[in-house]
């Protein structure tokens, strides 16, 4: 059977292939080696909207923000050489946070490969360790199949970023175009088989547990298993905590949601990790920020690990029962084997720890008696205005930990942050992508004064596109998280963490963004109200108590049960 073909250029094939995959939005930055593709984007601008960012890093973080809120594949484009290398931070971020991306880079013409030509960089080698897959295309006729394979690999199984490097001659040359979606790659099994015996063994452990504890991660969101998770925890009555990236899979106010695990997680979940008898990990990877030292992590517990990636099993924590498969499928299948249960006394232990934490940490954040503003009260003020329905984007640092601890969520896929890589500068461009992915929803980005200045050139993208992003800079005039560590572990030697900042209000206004600065508590509520009421982008700077710290805290190398409240 021969498919209908048309004679078109390689660069037109790129655009038509993207459209065939349902991509109608791409972020990028043009340059010499990708100009033929941009020429086609010009012709197809009614069908495929291209957003010009101000830096390639902005493009890829925007594509990540889009992918995180929609579940679709984010697309970004860059030219060869510096264009391609500027994508690398975002690619590494997407790889460690399992975000589906297709990145297309231009490359010098194939006859120039290996000659150190102008803007030639071996982006295939550079990106290999941080991509799920990558490929260089040097022949026009290979373009459609490469893009089809790229989309299939990026979104199937455990998602991740894919890079296609296309030489300029392949863009300019012609091919007989037809498009066929990729549905399998013979050496790649996206979803491992689920072993029913393991599933039953897991159910048996859960049913027999006196103190079961669930820790879920982004695998629940990526697998669209939010309903299955909720059904499981409600039926079995299991207190459940989340990792930073699992946040928003379960509403904040769910009665069995006991908070966050890890370095700045909640008190009870950290303490009780070392008291539970069965630890059920779902779609999470036991990152060191979650576990603290592994020597003393949940040693008393039987560990059940649900994951789609076989390489995660026993990688950090030895499991007793591993349930491989897609979380929606495995959580759905285990439910009939689960006995209805309530673990009230066990659940009460979490509540008791929460009371201690309220007293020592949470109340002083949310209802401060000191003069200086706290990050927690700003976030809480936004909660009040948005009712927890907003998409909350955060950058990296103290404000990020305050945001994930204090922001309320009612809806899944609403927490966008750089978890694994901890990329400062992520939030502003990611918020732009998130807003474009969910234009009807409120998108609020909390950013520190440090991270904001890493990518604040993207205010230009807001100016040009009108993306109605609400930007809240929590300004403590410090690189706060590093400063906190300097205070606690380096005798307050504040090496290169003091920030002399520009006038952020003028900066925002230069980009035609309405801007307000709050330095006093009595001005906060009004400013937040005005920001949320605005249907345009809005910049709010809040001056924060300078040397406030994030607690609780599990110091590096300590045990989760040694979590500190101060």
């Amino acid at each position: 059977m021969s498919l209908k073909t048309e004679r078109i250029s390689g660069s037109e094939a790129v655009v038509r292939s993207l459209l065939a995959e349902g991509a109608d939005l791409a972020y990028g930055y043009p340059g010499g080696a990708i100009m033929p593709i941009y020429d086609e984007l010009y012709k197809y601008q009614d069908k495929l909207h291209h957003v010009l960012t101000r830096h390639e890093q902005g493009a890829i973080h925007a594509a990540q923000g889009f992918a995180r809120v929609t579940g679709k594949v984010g697309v970004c484009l860059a030219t060869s050489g510096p264009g391609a290398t500027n994508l690398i931070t975002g690619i590494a971020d997407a790889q460690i946070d399992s975000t589906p991306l297709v990145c297309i880079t231009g490359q010098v013409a194939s006859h120039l490969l290996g000659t150190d030509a102008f803007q030639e960089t071996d982006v295939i080698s550079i990106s290999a360790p941080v991509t799920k897959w990558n490929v260089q295309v040097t022949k026009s006729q290979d373009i459609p199949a490469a893009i089809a394979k790229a989309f299939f690999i990026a979104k199937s199984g455990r998602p991740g970023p894919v890079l296609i490097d296309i030489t300029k001659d392949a863009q300019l040359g012609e091919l007989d175009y037809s498009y066929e979606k990729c549905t399998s790659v013979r050496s790649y099994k996206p979803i491992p088989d689920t072993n029913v015996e393991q599933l039953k063994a897991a159910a048996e452990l859960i049913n027999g547990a006196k103190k079961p504890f669930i820790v879920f991660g982004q695998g629940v969101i990526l697998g669209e298993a939010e309903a299955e998770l909720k059904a499981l925890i409600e039926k079995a009555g299991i207190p459940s905590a989340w990792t930073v990236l699992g946040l928003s899979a379960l509403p904040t106010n769910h009665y069995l949601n006991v908070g966050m695990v890890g370095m700045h997680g909640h008190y009870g979940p950290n303490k009780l990790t070392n008291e539970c008898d069965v630890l059920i990990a779902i779609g999470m990877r036991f990152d060191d920020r979650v576990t603290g030292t592994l020597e003393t992590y949940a040693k008393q517990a039987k560990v059940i690990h649900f994951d789609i990636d076989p390489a995660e099993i026993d990688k950090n924590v030895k499991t007793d029962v591993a349930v491989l498969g897609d979380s929606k499928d495995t959580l759905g299948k285990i439910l009939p084997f689960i006995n209805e249960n309530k673990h009230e006394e066990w659940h009460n232990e979490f509540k008791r720890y929460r009371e201690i934490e309220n007293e020592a940490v949470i109340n002083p954040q949310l209802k401060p008696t000191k003069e200086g503003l706290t990050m927690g009260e700003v976030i809480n003020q936004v909660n009040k205005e948005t009712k927890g329905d907003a998409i909350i984007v955060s950058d990296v640092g103290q404000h990020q930990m305050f945001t994930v601890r204090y922001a309320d969520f009612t809806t899944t896929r609403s927490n966008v942050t750089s978890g694994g890589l901890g990329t400062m500068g992520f939030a502003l461009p990611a918020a732009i992508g998130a807003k474009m992915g969910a234009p009807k929803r409120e998108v609020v980005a909390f950013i520190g004064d440090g991270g904001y200045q890493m990518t604040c050139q993207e205010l230009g993208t807001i100016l040009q596109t009108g993306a109605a992003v609400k930007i809240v800079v929590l300004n403590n005039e410090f690189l706060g998280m590093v400063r906190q560590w300097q205070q606690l572990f380096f005798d307050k030697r504040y090496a290169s963490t003091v920030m002399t900042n520009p006038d952020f209000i003028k900066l925002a206004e230069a980009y035609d963004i309405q801007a307000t600065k709050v330095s006093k508590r009595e001005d906060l509520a009004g400013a937040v109200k005005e920001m949320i009421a605005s249907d345009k982008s809005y910049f709010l700077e809040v001056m924060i108590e300078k040397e406030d710290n994030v607690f609780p805290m599990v110091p590096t190398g300590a045990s989760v049960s040694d979590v500190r409240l101060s």
Partner: protein
Amino acid sequence: MEELFTISVYTENNPGLLNRIATIFLKRHINIESLNVSKSEIENVHRFTIVARMTEVSVKKLVGQIEKQIEVIKAYYHRDDEIIFHETALYKIASSLLFEKREIQNIIKKSHATIVTVNPKFFVIEKTGFRKETEALYDELAPYGIMQFVRTGRISVSKTEMRISEQLKNL
């Protein structure tokens, strides 16, 4: 405890995969002792044979990471008692020595090495066997002067089946 493992990786034959596999070792600071790439028993499927020293816990994780690569079909690790393995070494020696140092002829005969080629300037001996055998021959020849020496990476076949064809059907 660190042990010597032979890792067999069945892959598609695509450029860039060697780089990806090497990176997995590099990221964990594990030195590759030898590496061989060849075709396998299955058409269009290539096979890497990698020898490295590490703990069993590490090798399990490493093989998991290798298998995660899109174009890797399957990876296995074996201890020496689970495989049949060999290396081949070539020794280039001055032809004059064959006549001046008659002992060399005895060394070749005794070691079951083969003479691959002889010309007026040099001759080449090939020896296939275990590391200690090619090493012993090296030690015996070294005092006479070896013009060039080279040894392949380990190649091996497992004593038990690796069932790659079945794996491929299931994928």
